[in-house]
């Protein structure tokens, strides 16, 4: 399943309805993408992995609330 915001014909990412996202949304999506990446790594200490996965859960809810991304994060330990 598609993990993150899509990209339309324009330059930036789009939300779940295909509309361009606002600046603050784009910033939030960057945070989400970074956490998502870190949560999938298996070479980090437990204190990092556990906290990152927890943080990813919260940010995942925020991007879903805003209609930017909708995905289930079990594969990222979240």
């Amino acid at each position, binding site marked *: *399943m598609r993990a993150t915001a899509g990209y339309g014909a324009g330059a930036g990412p789009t939300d*779940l*309805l295909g509309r361009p996202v606002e600046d603050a949304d784009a910033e939030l999506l960057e945070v989400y993408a970074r956490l998502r990446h870190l949560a999938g790594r298996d070479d980090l200490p437990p204190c990092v992995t556990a906290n990152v*996965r*927890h943080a*990813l*859960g*919260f940010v*995942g*809810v925020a991007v*879903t*609330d*805003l*209609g930017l991304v*909708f*995905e*289930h*994060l*079990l594969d990222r*330990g*979240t």
Partner: protein
Amino acid sequence: MADQPYWNPRTETMAREELEALQLAKLRRVVAYAGERSPHYRAALAKAGVGPQDLSTMADLRRLPFTTRQEWMEGQDLRPPYGTLPVAGPEAAIRLHTTSGTTGRTPLRALDSRKDWAWAADMWCYGMWAMGVRPHDLAYLAFGYGSFIGFWGLHYGLEKLGALVVPGGAQTTESRVRQIVEFGATVVATTPTYALRLAQCSRDLGLDLPGSAVRTVVLSGEPAGSIPETKRLIEDQWGARAYDTAGMTEIATIFMFECLHQPGGAHIIEDHVLEEVVDPVTDEPVPYGEMGERVVTSFGRSMIPLIRYRTSDLVVKVPASRCSCGRTFDIYEGGVLGRADDMRLVRGTNVYPRAVESIVRARPEIDEFQVRIVTEGIRDEIYLRCELHDQAARAAEWPAIQAWLADALAGAHEGLRFRVELAEPGSLPRFELKAKRLVDLRAASRPLTLEVAP
């Protein structure tokens, strides 16, 4: 932050057509996810011959099969202990909750991941924010903190929101009331039944609850939170405003909340749950303003996707325009009106616990009550047994209260005669969680059974 009226203004005020487009986008993804990963849905969707590619409009929702509680229970028997609905095993979860068991059926076991739990708390935040709860509040949760999900999600939601939370578990009612007053709680969460018990206890202790800092009472767990007579009683006894919510273990959290405008119902959190109202017999959707059975599709729980789940809750959906708060989320008028399987047939007349409670709660002299249905000879009889506040002192008032109740109950039930009796003080059961005040002792009780194809 605190002066913003909505927790999530983007979706709470979204145009209806956009909201439906968002729901459809999420529905397709949930169906794809469930069909790939949940053993139950892999089989159910294949059997129905439907997948995400078949969902072009919201009308296609009806092509998806219903999910029933019976199937959930059977799945647990087939693949114990968690069943065939979860997409992963307990190693992927961080929480396990069960249903309350008040229906007497096998409790359901529900797993939540990190993200699921963050989401469950967020749904409570939608509701708390709409009730005016803010980070400066001190919230007291008068709740047992057991395996039943109850107010667990609210606890985490309040923490997320930034409020100060007091977990009021494992204490006596007396201790809870004292803490509520002494800590200066501004928000208290409890079931409607227990709200009344806490208020009674405060009077017994000589504490001034209406004069305390409490300004908001968050109700959940029973339909009584939306019964006007019960709510009025709670508001009078607490000197605070009471707001209804409703949730269910099966989706991990609440699906509706009452906003500050209190339009006589509760807003549905429609960007996270898709709520249908159907005729329980024909399965056909019912229009706005007509009573039917709630059917829920949840978008939020990763561990257990739930598609078109039949809840047995009876509701009436009305448009969001009924409320002036600005939200575009539709409303369940009067909240959850009862459960289809709560209805009893007594000498040809339908008796709903909610209807009885709305009459009983119009009499503030009544402390606790119970409805008992028995067979005497060949005839069914229905009894209402009551305990009064300060019963000994009120003995002289009872005949008038008794006559009033008998008249009101008969008037609301096609002339069905209730035998109204006074019970010994302290003899009726008290409840902290879901009250069960209707006791059907007939040899073969006859609830309304829903014929739902598995």
